């Protein structure tokens, strides 16, 4: 299948630096011109969370009057008041510390940190405090805090605006970590996270903020049950027989594109959207590989000690006999996230993923 390598050359994942990016997504499997985009889905989920539970709060830098730099929280302050939706000073560690204290008071804060790279200053409060206050207090202080973090790269942004922190957070006992891939997924997973009584790190695929999907978002006062799989369940985004592409967040669309291309060559790829990175759906992973016998895991984060390693290790532990080839990893390189034109040489491209698929199939 070597001709696959050229099928899509030059067309990496779209750069979604402006709201018009979805226009260039017409050839993409999950692209739609109509329906809400991922930001609107998140906004609707927040609106519903604020409506259904008076203990929820939305806070962070510029989330109030501005509605967030990506407008995910737009209109929420007007609708729910300055007490429920408010701006904080510019202090990430303080914001997360504030949330720990609010949760000890019985509130359910939904903080936003403005970009992935600016979660680092808050790591101490997240790891040493938020993740273990329940444990430290032997259950006296649950921490129902959902940290929203615009994440991953692909939008030609400045330094520290294209980072992938899932591996860091997934390693921390006491945290849940999730990364949605589509508007519908974003809506459901965010509500599920907010309703969870434990901390959730919610990684928003910022390069997919402008992706649209033809769905109907429930009104904020909807009392309809959420049609959600249990926390920690993965999703077969595309069934297939020859190999499994394991992915999450922004990379799900990329992997679906890869699968389309591969299909043109008669290669039938399964795309497994992990969604939850902690807890990780070992059973789902094992079931998929039991069907396909081969797996390629794709992520934007650097290779070494990335979450792909965990996926690979679990697959070896669970499916040693079934694996017909070693699990391949396609990831960012072990270099700091680069600027503009180098971004798409750093990120997994369709070509690089296809090459790994080829290696796997030819093994």
């Amino acid at each position, binding site marked *: 299948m070597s001709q696959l390598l050229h099928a899509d050359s030059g067309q990496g994942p779209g750069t979604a630096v402006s709201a018009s990016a979805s226009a260039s997504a017409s050839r993409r499997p999950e692209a739609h011109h109509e329906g809400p985009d991922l930001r609107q889905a998140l906004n609707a989920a927040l609106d519903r969370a604020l409506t259904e539970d008076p203990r929820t*709060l939305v806070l962070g830098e510029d989330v109030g009057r501005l509605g967030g730099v990506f407008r995910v929280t737009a209109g929420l302050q007007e609708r729910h008041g300055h*007490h429920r939706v408010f701006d*904080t*000073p510019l*202090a990430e*560690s*303080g914001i*997360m*510390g*504030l*949330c*720990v*204290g*609010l*949760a*000890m*008071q*019985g*509130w359910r804060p939904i903080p936003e940190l403005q970009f992935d790279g600016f979660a680092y200053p808050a790591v*101490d*409060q997240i790891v*040493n*405090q938020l993740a273990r*206050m*329940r*444990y*430290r*207090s*032997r*259950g*006296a*202080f*649950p921490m129902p805090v959902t940290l929203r973090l615009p994440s991953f790269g692909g939008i030609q942004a400045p330094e520290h605006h294209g980072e992938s922190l899932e591996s860091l957070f997934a390693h921390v*006992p*006491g945290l*849940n970590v999730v990364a949605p891939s589509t508007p519908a997924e974003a809506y459901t997973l965010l509500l599920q996270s907010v309703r*969870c*009584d*434990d901390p959730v790190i919610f990684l928003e695929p910022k390069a997919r903020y402008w992706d649209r999907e033809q769905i109907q978002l429930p009104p904020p006062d909807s009392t309809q049950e959420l049609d959600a799989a249990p926390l*920690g369940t993965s999703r077969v985004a595309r069934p297939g027989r020859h190999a499994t592409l394991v992915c999450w967040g922004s990379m799900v669309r990329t992997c679906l594109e890869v699968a389309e291309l591969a299909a043109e060559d008669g290669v039938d790829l399964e795309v497994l959207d992990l969604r939850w990175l902690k*807890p*990780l759906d*070992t*059973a789902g992973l094992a079931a998929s590989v039991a069907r396909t016998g081969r797996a390629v895991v794709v992520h934007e984060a650097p290779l070494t000690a990335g979450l792909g390693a965990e996926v690979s290790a679990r697959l070896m532990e669970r499916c040693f006999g079934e694996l017909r080839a070693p699990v391949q990893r396609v990831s960012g390189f072990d270099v700091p996230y680069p600027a503009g034109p180098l971004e798409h040489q750093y990120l997994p491209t369709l070509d690089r993923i296809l090459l790994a698929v080829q290696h796997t199939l030819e093994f």
Partner: protein
Amino acid sequence: MSSPPRDQDRNASSTTDATPPTHPVDLTGTDVSPEVLRALYRDMVYARHLDDEAVALQRQGVFPAYVPLRGQEAAQVGSAAAMDRTSDFAFPTYREMAVAVTLGVDMVGYMASHRALWHGGLYDPSRSRLAPINAVVGGPVPHAVGWALGAQLDGTPGCALAYFGDGASSEGDVHEAMNMAAVFQAPVVFLCQNNQWALSVPNRDQVAGGSIAARAAGYGMPGHEVDGNDVLAVYTTTRAALARARSGGGPSLIEARTYRLGPHSTSDDTRRYRSEDTERQWARADPIERLYTAMLAAGTVPGDDSFAAEVREQAQEAAASMRAGVRVAPPPSGEEMFTHVFSEPTDELLRQQRAWREEVELG
């Protein structure tokens, strides 16, 4: 070399300029009732005995380590006694045992942290109005602000009391917390015990400008420096600050200047960094003596020493009962490692718990 780090021109044996305040507490015209004064005395004496007992338990190998508070009884008891125990909440570091005594915390549960049974202690933090013991210097200070903000949002009269040390004042979290508290006008009192040492580092190499109270002005909030070995001064200053916060007047900062008479912890050796001379001078500023002398003079207690004797006896009993309790306190079951991580255990955690159980049964 033009101007070296200050370390250099420091004389190892002259580390503090403050003259220890040895005069009796001034009871003239105080509105504080004799009952309260006697309670302050009693709590300080209890704390002293429990502290000594804990040091002894460490020497006997029952505690792996302990952090004595000797010398700081007035700063801790005076501030905690000012709390409204139905609505306020205190956020301790690792050295606030006398705060726990004052709040009536179960001492066996408190000492469980030093006995290394459970890091946060085994007392009930909600009922005790005392957050779990927190070992991150500066870390709990933003929690107090979040808790206070939560009370404010709820419209309840609760105030938070945030304890920290002179060393902690250098941490970014303390600054972020103070700025946030003042921006939100949150009902929180920042209570710094300046015991002049952060482990081996004196104020001079730690606190630029020399005054922590002076930092308050930069946030537009009141800052009070108070004789931290004068339990009445600490009590009335904290009471006023809490009243101010409770009535919507916003946060304030109190710096209680005191002295850590003992080592930083039982593993510490103060000879390496400070003179025994200064230690002896400060020993003469004993906060317990300073209150007792004043109470004797004012007739708050009988002149025959019977009150002191009675309190001493009760304190010895309390210490003995703590000793008896911690010696027999059973270590928590290993199951507890797993049960307090999440509100509902994940499949992976259950798997690990099962594996742990099997190994324990085998081992």
